[in-house]
């Protein structure tokens, strides 16, 4: 019987993990959104001089923020998730936002279920 205090076993979670958090994605999308809205304001009002009309009376701007093309968003691998590293890289490729790679071979069992055994 294995020593319960120090089980000798292989960690089944040894595979590389690729992860992006929802908050990181939200931050990036928000960044895109604010940039695009600034550009849109300039385009809608070519003369920057105020006309005196209150801004509040302006009709609502059309939604021109492009939805992120999730199919073209890939994520950095876990080792790159340092504070200085980009969290999201925009490139064509991996289709999933979150994936966890599994070990290619089955992990070794920590124990076995069977009918009563001594």
């Amino acid at each position: 019987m294995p020593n319960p205090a120090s089980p000798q076993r292989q960690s089944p979670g040894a595979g590389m993990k690729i992860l992006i958090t929802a908050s990181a994605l939200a931050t990036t999308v928000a960044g895109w959104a604010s940039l695009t809205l600034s550009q849109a304001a300039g385009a809608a009002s070519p003369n920057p001089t105020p006309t005196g009309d209150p801004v509040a009376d302006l009709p609502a701007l059309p939604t021109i923020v492009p939805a992120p093309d999730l199919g073209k968003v890939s994520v950095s691998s876990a080792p790159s998730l340092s504070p200085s590293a980009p969290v999201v890289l925009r490139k064509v490729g991996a289709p999933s936002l979150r994936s966890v790679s599994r070990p290619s071979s089955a992990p070794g069992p920590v124990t076995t279920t069977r009918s009563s055994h001594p």
Partner: protein
Amino acid sequence: MGSGMLAIVDADGPAAAARLALVPSWFEVWEGRLSRFRSESELNRLNAAAGVPQPASGVLWDVVERAIEAARVTGGLVSPTIASALEAAGYDRTFEAIGSVAALPAQAPPPIADWRRLRMDRRERTICLPPGVRLDLGGIAKGWAADRAARRLRVAGPALVDASGDIAVSGPQADGQPWPIAVADPHQADGQLDLIMLSHGAVATSGRDYHRWKQGEFWQHHIIDPRTSRPADTDVIAATVVAPTAVEAEAAAKVALILGSRGGPEWLEAHPGLAGLLVLEDGRVVRTARMRKHVWR
């Protein structure tokens, strides 16, 4: 409980080691309460006093309560009132002692008492067995011990407790991964059928492969079918069930074995919390639909 156990805490440090060191003493206490093979056990004192309400410890109360709940859920297919039938089948001593006997004399099985005749007084915390009725808590006690120990260990870290094949986990391992647990192949020594990845709950196996003995002309085993008072006549060699608790897994595995390949899978499918794997006499392996999500692929 006449069997080995294993406890793992997925954490380093003295706190985890100290907690683990307590596990054998927990099992020793529980065995002293629940074993049919210890003459001074609380269970045997209760069995010897049928017809008279007996005060029960928290442990005995808890396990009898779960045994009755298992009987209710399984429609009586798993009943604690089978002690006399087990003994009539030859299981009147430990498996080790049975192994040293060439063949036991045949006995007619007694009828099995209706589990609904047990009386439990919650306020007084007493249990009263009907006259002539004795309890066996074997498998349910094993599952209960696994559940209880895993719950006690989780304060020190993610835990797994294997009480002789009834396995409970407190949650995923420290790295978030499920615990890999092999399902033994009853047709092949040291063989493995599947690898179950268990993050929560429990898994248990009930089988007639490991413990069997000859009584008269016939091979007997310890899974009693309460409908006949005899060891179950079934084409299932072993049944493995994943369930929210080890008690539930143990009871459901027994039901699957008793009902056989025709009724066992259907019964498991009808209970949403259960997933099962049945090994048949002819070598076939039957898995319920929900078992696929637990098995390594």
